[in-house]
């Protein structure tokens, strides 16, 4: 027998999509605090307002992030969720797990938490929803000692880096996104656990310009795989697509009759740089003009492959609209090699962090700092060379902040000599 009547949220048990309400109700049989959660959620559905209070400062010794305090604003009515804190556990690269590890984590969360999770949170962590303050150190002990894992980030720190599944199961991956993500996570453990930044800083790694982890939209530092040389073409397989032996786009459009595959209409004419041609026998690509949008490769994955001179493009400064408006990440290094322990990438990140920590205001993301101080200051601080790949177009106003050292003779002038030529 349920503790509360929940007619409103019961409506969400209908329909074909998996119902979180049914799921929570089943779990509530062994985790009675979830009855209180359902009761409070029903009340929110009635009131059309949340009943969670502001987070308080809770955490584990020595860390400033990874745990988010959460309290019900109706603790008397719903005592089981009076304290209902969140624990962020660092996910694995590409979200691969085995049943032993996750089984261990689930068992721990049954003993020490509510039994409710997010797989995964928006930044990427495994999010464990709902525990009490006195459990936090116990949880941290078990995570580190028994499960050999660690907390993720929250607050003004490096947020848990995340990546696509990369080379593990994708033919498009130009870089080992998982290895880069793991290395960045390990190299910046202190920054991840001890907030010292003006605000959050996110690193995301995508294997190719399809950008499955949304690095370009969501990360302060986006690392996106690319290539510099020629797209590899297998002409006989191109012919197989043209002849209809192979389905375009790996069969992604199979649910509708779009007619016979037309390589001119569907590939050549859609190429953003018009650098391709098809004469009925041979596909030609003027690779020098290609901007690596991936469309032709996505349409004919069995015939076309990225080149072999692979690396990453670094972009900086993406964020959602709060506060100064939305930003996509912008190019700061067109091509960087991704080898060994990725020292070249770390060197750029370190310089970005130094500059941002020196000049960033409270709650100012690095993209907003670039907006406020200009690319000029960022480039000066990082030593990155200005290149045309950084801009869509050059500036259309000439209001250039020249510096004294830029101008022949500097800014010191002889007024007397000037007035001799130009009397007042």
């Amino acid at each position, binding site marked *: 027998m349920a503790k509360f009547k929940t007619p*409103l949220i019961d*409506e*969400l048990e209908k*329909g*074909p*999509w*998996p*119902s*979180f309400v049914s*799921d929570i109700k*089943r779990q509530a049989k062994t985790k009675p605090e979830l009855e209180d959660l359902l009761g409070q*959620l029903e009340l929110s*559905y009635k009131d*059309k*307002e*949340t009943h*969670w209070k*502001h987070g308080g400062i809770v955490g584990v*010794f*020595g860390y400033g992030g990874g745990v988010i305090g959460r309290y019900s604003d109706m603790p008397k009515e719903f005592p089981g969720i009076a304290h209902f804190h969140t624990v962020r*556990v*660092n*996910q694995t690269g590409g*979200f*691969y*797990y085995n049943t032993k590890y996750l089984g261990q984590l689930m068992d721990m969360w049954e003993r020490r938490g509510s039994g409710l999770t*997010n*797989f*995964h949170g*928006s930044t990427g962590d495994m999010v464990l929803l709902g525990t009490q303050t006195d459990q936090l150190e*116990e949880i*941290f*002990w078990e995570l*580190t000692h028994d499960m050999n*894992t660690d907390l993720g980030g929250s607050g003004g720190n490096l947020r848990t880096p995340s990546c*696509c599944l990369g080379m*593990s*199961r*994708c033919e498009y991956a130009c870089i080992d996104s998982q290895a880069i993500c*793991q290395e960045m*996570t*390990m190299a910046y*453990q202190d920054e991840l656990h001890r907030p010292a930044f003006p605000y959050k800083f996110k690193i995301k790694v995508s294997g190719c*310009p399809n950008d499955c*982890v*949304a690095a370009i939209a969501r990360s302060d530092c986006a690392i996106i795989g690319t290539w510099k040389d020629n797209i590899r073409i297998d002409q006989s397989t191109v012919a197989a697509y043209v002849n209809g032996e192979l389905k375009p*786009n*790996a*069969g*992604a*459009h*199979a*649910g509708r009759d779009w007619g016979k595959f037309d390589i001119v209409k*569907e590939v050549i004419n859609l190429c953003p740089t018009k650098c391709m041609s098809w004469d009925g026998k041979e596909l030609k690509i003027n690779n020098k003009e290609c901007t690596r*949008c991936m*469309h032709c490769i996505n349409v004919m994955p069995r015939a076309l492959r990225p080149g072999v001179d692979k690396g990453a493009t670094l972009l900086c400064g993406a964020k959602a609209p*709060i*506060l100064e*408006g939305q930003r*996509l990440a912008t190019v700061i290094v067109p091509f960087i090699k991704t080898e060994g322990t990725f020292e070249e990438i770390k060197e750029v990140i370190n310089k970005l962090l130094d500059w941002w920590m020196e000049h960033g205001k409270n709650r100012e993301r690095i993209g907003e700092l670039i907006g406020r101080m200009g690319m000029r200051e960022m480039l000066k601080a990082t030593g990155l060379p200005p290149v045309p790949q950084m801009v869509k177009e050059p500036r259309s106003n000439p209001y250039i902040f020249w510096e004294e050292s830029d101008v022949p003779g500097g800014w010191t002038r002889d007024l007397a000599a000037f007035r001799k030529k130009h009397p007042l």
Partner: protein
Amino acid sequence: MGYDPKNPMKDRITDIGPRSYEEFMPPVIKKNFGKWLYHEILEPGVLMHKAESGDEVYTVRVGAARLMSIELIRDALKIADKHCDGCLRWTTRNNIEFMVDNKSKLEPLKADLKANPMFPIGGTGAGVTNIVHTQGWVHCHTPAIDASGIVKSVMDDLFKHFQSMDLPAQVRIALACCLNMCGAVHCSDIAILGFHRKPPFVQHEVISQICELPLAIAACPTGAIKPATVDGKKSVSVNGERCMFCGNCYTMCPAMPLMDAEGDCVVIMMGGKISNRISAPKFSKVVIPALPSNPPRWPEVVAAVRNILETYAKNANKYERIGEWAERIGWERVFEKCNIPFNVKTIDDYTLAYNTLRTTTQFKFS
């Protein structure tokens, strides 16, 4: 053994980071790492990846509410134990993927998944995949709307597009329950955003005891909050005309709540994307500034999303994302085709507004 509260620093382990993915990849994935040739979508929700070695891995993708119980995850683990050598993975859009290394193992895996309605197979190719979203009323202190309930309602309505690939291109839907956008809906084909529309209360009698007033003042991006003295107590005043309802002050100061059942609403945005394919990544644009937030099923929101999706599906070219379709036909045409009334509130008047105004005589008449 175990944690000793009397001696918290004893045997403490810190900064070890996450487990490595290398421990958890299925053998066929590990063996062919970086050596994949191509993939095919065999049917909605089922992928085959071919490696240079000739090996094949078959993946079955299932949808899931991101909010999951440990019992449901254990159900997934049981299937992974039975069929997939104990390995499984999640996608960046909260789907679960089960992988087998031989075609003969595919049908038994699918049969077990189909037996559990909590694991619907789909989410591949030119269809609607899982909605990425935030916490909402289930676990957040600033939401204007719920998250899981709206996602459930919209996905119920669009379910056939999750299990088919009948759209011009993939459609990525995202939901964020307030302007903070933990769900980063600012680059999605269709975005559902919760929004407050009443400026914060100021609880003058307690604010100076529970908040750092300078932090609350500094948190306001539009300078709408000023120091004030009310009834002899230090407090703040809010200029409602300058408030853009972001809730930053509330994040800094619990004595300034702004949620309100009447005022809170749903914004519908469209035309954003992340991929660099064909055209550059782009932001979502506001097309409906406010819909009512009507739990438990949000019929107005569900109808608005379906309307945009169906109008796009009927009119766009193959491979064209919603934003690319909108740019080809022009946004004036989008409002007409979708039968969405144009509203002065969809004209930008924030920091980057000028970039969005029309600076040419080239436009289409309605």
